[in-house]
């Protein structure tokens, strides 16, 4: 975007190789496309090779990440299966949501899925776990761009606000109270930031509605 050359002269290199004698081949018109082509070819080769070499390691690291996020929203002891591989895809709107299922003794005890809602700056993505009775087990923000110092209190590292959803279900609190306190609900907002917690509350409520609408499918054995 800003490829302006520096305005400051370089004190140590007054001359510059451009003017060096005996480099006539570099001035030839045919040389320049060849140079550019060779550099581009080498660069793409190096990138392709690096991509091949790192592909598996990256996939493994990302799977480890996902596993870690999943175990953070799920209380311990709920699952004895490999949650990462026990997934179903359920359409929601234009996209589909990947639902991870935690099983104990073969029965689905809880599901984990991702929901997102528009916050103050951009989409807030969060991972939520819901047990078979439709109660929220945990909510964890995984990506957001809210204002640092205000809206970022939704992050688990900054405040434990998001833990306030644990145990909540569609009728606890009553539907009208699924809102921040400013709107007559039960959830705290932050000083100076209402849009962000409002969006998170809406996202969690939406997630619970989504669970209620697809309960059979999520808890059933079909895939």
């Amino acid at each position, binding site marked *: 975007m800003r490829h302006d050359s520096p305005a400051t002269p370089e004190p140590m290199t007054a001359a510059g190789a451009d003017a060096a004698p005996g480099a006539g081949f570099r001035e030839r018109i045919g040389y*320049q496309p060849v140079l550019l082509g060779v550099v581009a070819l080498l660069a793409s080769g190096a990138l392709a090779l690096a991509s091949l070499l790192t592909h598996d390691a990256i996939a493994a690291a990302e799977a480890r990440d996902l596993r870690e996020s999943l175990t953070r929203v799920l209380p311990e002891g709920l699952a004895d299966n490999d949650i990462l591989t026990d997934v179903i895809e359920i359409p929601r709107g234009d996209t589909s949501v990947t639902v991870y299922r935690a099983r104990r003794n073969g029965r689905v005890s809880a599901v984990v899925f991702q929901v997102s809602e528009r916050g103050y700056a951009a989409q807030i993505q969060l991972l939520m776990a819901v047990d078979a009775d439709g109660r929220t087990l945990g909510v964890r923000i995984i990506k957001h761009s809210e204002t640092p110092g205000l809206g970022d209190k939704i992050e688990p590292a900054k405040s434990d606000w998001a833990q306030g959803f644990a145990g909540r279900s569609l009728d606890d609190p009553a539907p009208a109270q699924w809102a921040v306190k400013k709107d007559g609900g039960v959830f705290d907002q932050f000083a100076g930031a209402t849009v962000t917690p409002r969006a998170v509350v809406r996202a969690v409520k939406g997630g619970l509605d989504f669970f209620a609408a697809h309960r059979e499918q999520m808890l059933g054995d079909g895939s």
Partner: protein
Amino acid sequence: MSTRYGEIVKAGLWDQNVVLTQMLALCPAMAVTTSGTNGLGMGLATTAVLVLSNMAVSSIRKLLSPQVRIPVFVVIIASLVTLVDMTMRAYLHDLHKVLGLFIALIVVNCAILGRAESFAARSAILPSAVDGLAMGLGFTGALTAIGLVREFLGAGTLFAQASSLLGPGFAFLELTLPGVGGALLVILPPGGFAVLGFMLAGKRLLENRRSDAPTPTVATDSPPVTA
């Protein structure tokens, strides 16, 4: 030769500091310096790319043609950034989660192109590497300083979450000042401009005081400084 390396290092760290003197790379300098940790992380990642790109450009400097040198630099820098990004994602995954966003931003850091153009294309590999290191560390220092000031005034903390960047051993760096809420404005973009302005003014002041005569640096045509 040793004096010359000394000059290179001094130029990178202070006299020709990327942010505070050359006024380059202000986009990342403003965007990510909401905390000292962010500034440090961005600075270190940039330093790595700067050293590599300076060495790469220097090693092919005899083959470069003036007419197509800029596209060649751009290809080299973009590829290096992507390589660093992939490598970190694979082998330093936790660090990548903290720095991931910044790494992509390094591509548009004109300071890297600037060093390739004004230094590496005209110097041998070792001085180029030293120059990249010094310029990168100068950039890191400036970013960390801006970040710390903004963090301190804006959020009342210092080096918050440093341990997630540097490892748990660095948790002692993290300071929270009890009862200090901070002025949000300093964290928001205007605060970045204001803090940078004060820092530029401070650096000029320091240089003017050091030598009573006007500073011999090239930056006498100082841009307007907001204060």
